[in-house]
């Protein structure tokens, strides 16, 4: 079982700033989504709405077609593991935290939780407040996975985890996703590490959706063109150039465009070097826009 998600013209206004601005997004159920955005872009606010932790200032947040906030039937099926992670009772030990999770989550899988605890080597004889940051993150991940909630979200849940533990997280997330298909949203800054896990990627910036699509398809819409500055500008006329670098008469620019295939051929014919762009670079170029504009 998995849940679809709809944001219908959602705005979240804080006292001092607008975190989300008239956001409309649809996510099909049963996929792993990557949610990317710079700090302050609105990722955590978006996820807190889906965790039913806050109500939007205006607009509707729908899960499985129904308004989520204060919906008794839906909220137990939704889990958000965010930094610290705040699902943990730090005055207690491991067993208490697992017992609490088991009480609250109808789909809780105790043997699986214990298996993950072993794999992540989480200590069971000390209070959570003596845990390292990585151990806390690991326990948050265990609770997020073993809850088996049809909509599960991890908001930078990897903080403090070393590389092997992060790979263990990715591996377990994927394996359990294949056993029990659900809707998963992962917010991260370690894009290259996790990108192959995402079926779709969403990039938000300044509270707005910048792009959404299959990760491969997004990458396929971008190319870096390098060569004689005049030729680059000629080929890319009318297109927005991003991540521009110039060295003497050689210029390099990234373009994200629906006409990318055309531009690719045109560029090669004109003798330019045309290269694909990775998701992480694409993210950087897409979200850098404003600063580049200011510099010009």
């Amino acid at each position, binding site marked *: 079982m998995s849940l679809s998600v709809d944001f219908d013209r959602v705005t979240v206004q804080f006292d001092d700033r607008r975190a989300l601005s008239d956001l409309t997004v649809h996510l099909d159920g049963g996929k792993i989504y990557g949610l990317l955005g710079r700090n302050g872009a609105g990722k955590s606010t978006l996820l807190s709405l889906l965790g039913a932790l806050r109500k939007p200032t205006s607009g509707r947040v729908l899960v499985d077609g129904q308004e989520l906030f204060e919906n008794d039937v839906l*909220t137990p099926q939704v889990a958000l593991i965010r*930094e610290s992670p*705040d699902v943990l009772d730090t005055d207690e030990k491991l067993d208490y935290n697992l017992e609490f999770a088991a009480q609250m989550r109808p789909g809780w899988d105790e043997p699986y939780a214990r298996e993950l605890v072993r794999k992540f080597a989480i200590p069971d004889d000390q209070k959570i407040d003596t845990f390292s940051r990585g151990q806390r993150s690991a326990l948050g991940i265990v609770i997020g996975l073993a809850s088996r909630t049809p909509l599960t979200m991890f908001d930078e849940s990897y903080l403090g985890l070393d590389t092997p533990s992060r790979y263990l997280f990715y591996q377990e997330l994927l394996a359990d996703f294949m056993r029990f298909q659900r809707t998963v949203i992962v917010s991260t800054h370690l894009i290259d590490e996790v990108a192959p896990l995402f079926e779709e990627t969403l990039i938000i910036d300044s509270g707005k959706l910048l792009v959404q699509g299959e990760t491969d398809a997004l990458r396929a819409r971008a190319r870096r063109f390098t060569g004689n500055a005049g030729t680059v500008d000629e080929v890319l006329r009318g297109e927005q150039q991003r991540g521009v670098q110039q060295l003497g008469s050689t210029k390099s620019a990234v373009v994200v465009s629906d006409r990318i295939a055309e531009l690719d051929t045109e560029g090669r014919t004109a003798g330019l070097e045309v290269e694909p762009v990775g998701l992480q670079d694409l993210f950087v170029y897409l979200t850098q826009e404003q600063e580049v504009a200011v510099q010009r």
Partner: protein
Amino acid sequence: MNVSTWPSPKLMLRDHLAFAAMTAGGLFAVIIAIAVVYDIRSSDDVDQSFWAEAVTGVAPPYALGIGVYLMVVTFPRYVLYGETRKRFFQRIVRFSIPFSLGMALLGLAGWLLESVIYRIAGWEHTIGGSHLARSTRDAPHFVLELFITILPWFAFGALFGAIYLGRQSLLIAAIPLGVLGVGLVSMLLGLDEGPGGFVRSVFEPEPSTAIAVLLSLVITIAALWCMRIVTRDVAIQSQKA
């Protein structure tokens, strides 16, 4: 998942009654130690229950503290685990009465145990000050007095905690109302302690246990209902490590 019934406070009760029992045990040991020291150092014999004084003074603010804790610390975690604000309110309502009664019974247990120790020590076990119970034969009165004082204190604790999460400026209004409410209950019980001394100087109602019980229940319901209103749309903030 059955959402038509109010959620069970079982785990919450187990945790908080166990903790209250530990706290009561510690307090009891201190009280007995004080009685022994008093007996040795003073020329007078111990002739009244120290426990009754301590527990009637300490238990209500303790319950207030638990109310605050449940809202400020426990409530966000329940919401993070998929509980709606409404269902948490229901859980707290179902928790309030057995918890207050449990605390009152712990108070009674200490009092009865103290009377046994006093008898062995050869001390007189009277109850000082004004209380509903006159001796250990009045156990139900002792429990009733504790129960109806603890209950509204707990409810106001929950309200204060909710206001702390929601709209902190409301505390300016809520705290005096709380003092007034629990003060009136104490006065109606004919107790000469408890908060609200300033009220007493203006208005001193005729003591009536029946009205006290009624008022205790009414202000508990009112405080918990206000807690519900304050938390209706409250956002659960991220606690950065």
